């Protein structure tokens, strides 16, 4: 059923008792033309674009838990394309353009809100870096605007902009088209749209092995039996290394835990996304009224999906340094997600060194905003057995070749990006 004002009215008159399920839950078939491992945003988007852009509809998405239960449901919902390096800038800008039209494309309201993403500058060198990045963005055709301290203070009255501040605000780089998207809706919207094109979405089906014959994949062993396929796309960020190891591939990736948290819900107090690199902190307000906050990694390898108190203390301290008036709020929930941290801080969307095996992963902190473009490029790479120009740089080989895409210039330390 197509969602519209008419279907809403029709179902309202029938007391909302006859809405069809948004997607089927079929038993896995014996064979598919392509199988995607991982039913988060990236995996579901890959399946959707395989069917829509490339006409490959014999596709299964295998998810060991439930749809969007991993990082798709654990991020801070921010979307932006304010990158400095060309490969990142063009890729994330393509993604942001897809976000802008995604609700119409999927016929599912993903609640994209172009409320702006503001990076604060707290020192003269921060200001220089923001100007430089803003200029690079504008040269790449991406919207960027430098705001003075006064403009920011007028716009965000509860932000501490006095000269006495522990981290004085000296300006900020705004990307007006950045903002937030409702993260669960992204998984559900892609799942529904992919299902409508014939993709089988199979939940509670964990992949236990990848079968390879003469250097090419022939299928997967799963908790629901063997599934034959000549093409496998891995979209399991957080566990990429774990799944790639089933094909005896070692990746330049470590898994780290990143925490996020929300306050109790309050009336509207913040109508944009504020981030600060100096204290590594980002905050926005959800439509439910919660202040959604995040910070740095816990800085040690982890698969635990939960972190420790020092980072929560750091994030809340940063919050209060920037927004003293939020000190009366209680934290309501905290949680953690497992990040694939690559050695240069940029993702891998590429063919792997086994025929028929592909991956999108290594998303570090930045996977959610990449979801549509990641799916688009992953699908292109699977369908054509060759990358799209926009993901040609995100290879596995680049580490060996010294062609790093190191936005921060932090060197080969997975937790430093």
């Amino acid at each position: 059923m197509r969602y519209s004002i008419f279907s809403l009215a029709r179902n309202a008159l029938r007391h909302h008792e006859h809405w069809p399920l948004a997607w089927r839950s079929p038993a896995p078939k014996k064979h598919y033309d392509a199988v995607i491992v991982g039913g988060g945003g990236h995996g579901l988007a890959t399946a959707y674009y395989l069917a829509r852009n490339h006409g490959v509809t014999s596709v299964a998405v295998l998810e060991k838990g439930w749809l969007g239960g991993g990082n798709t449901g654990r991020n801070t919902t921010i979307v932006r394309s304010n990158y400095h390096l060309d490969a990142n800038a063009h890729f994330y800008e393509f993604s942001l353009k897809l976000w802008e039209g995604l609700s119409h494309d999927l016929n599912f309201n993903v609640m994209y809100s172009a409320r702006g993403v503001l990076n604060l500058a707290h020192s003269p060198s921060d200001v220089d870096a923001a100007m430089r990045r803003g200029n690079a963005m504008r040269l790449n055709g991406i919207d960027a605007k430098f705001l003075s301290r006064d403009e920011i203070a007028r716009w965000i009255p509860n932000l501490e902009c006095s000269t006495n501040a522990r981290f004085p605000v000296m300006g900020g780089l705004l990307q007006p088209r950045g903002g937030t998207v409702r993260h669960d809706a992204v998984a559900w919207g892609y799942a529904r749209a992919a299902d409508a094109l014939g993709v089988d979405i199979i939940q509670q089906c964990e992949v236990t092995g990848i079968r390879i014959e003469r250097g090419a994949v022939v299928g997967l062993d799963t908790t629901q039996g063997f599934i034959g396929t000549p093409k496998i796309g891995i979209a399991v960020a957080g566990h990429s290394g774990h799944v790639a190891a089933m094909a005896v591939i070692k990746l330049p990736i470590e898994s780290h835990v990143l925490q996020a948290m929300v306050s109790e819900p309050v009336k509207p107090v913040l109508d944009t996304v504020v981030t600060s690199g100096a204290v590594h902190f980002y905050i926005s307000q959800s439509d439910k009224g919660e202040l959604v906050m995040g910070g740095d990694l816990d800085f040690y390898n982890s698969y635990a999906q939960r972190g420790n108190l020092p980072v929560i203390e750091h994030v809340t301290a940063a919050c209060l340094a920037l927004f003293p008036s939020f000190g009366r709020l209680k934290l309501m929930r905290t949680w953690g997600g497992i990040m694939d941290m690559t050695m240069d801080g940029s993702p891998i969307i590429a063919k792997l060194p086994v025929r028929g095996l592909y991956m999108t992963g290594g998303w570090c902190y930045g996977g959610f905003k990449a979801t549509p473009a990641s799916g688009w490029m992953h699908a292109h790479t699977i369908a054509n057995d060759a990358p799209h120009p926009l993901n040609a740089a995100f290879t596995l080989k680049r580490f060996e070749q010294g062609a790093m895409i190191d936005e921060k210039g932090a060197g080969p330390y997975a937790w430093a990006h």
Partner: protein
Amino acid sequence: MLLIPCPWCGPRNQVEFTYGGDATLQRPANDASVAAWFAYVYLRDNPKGPLDELWLHSAGCRSWFKVRRDTRTHDILGSTRIGQNLPAIARDAK
């Protein structure tokens, strides 16, 4: 909160420490192949389970040492000085 057992200072709060990553990596010889150096600098086993890792007691005795920690639970399973080894880890095939 991690309570990290520094072999020199005893158990201390994690905020006193800096992480140093996988302690099992072996630095290749200076004239080793590019492939060996690539593997050392970039590739990681990234195990889901016990991992031997380097920690620096940066706000304490300033010594590097090894900690064995389970990456699934954050349980700390032991620690030792550099140059000494923790007992071998029994890993299941998967």
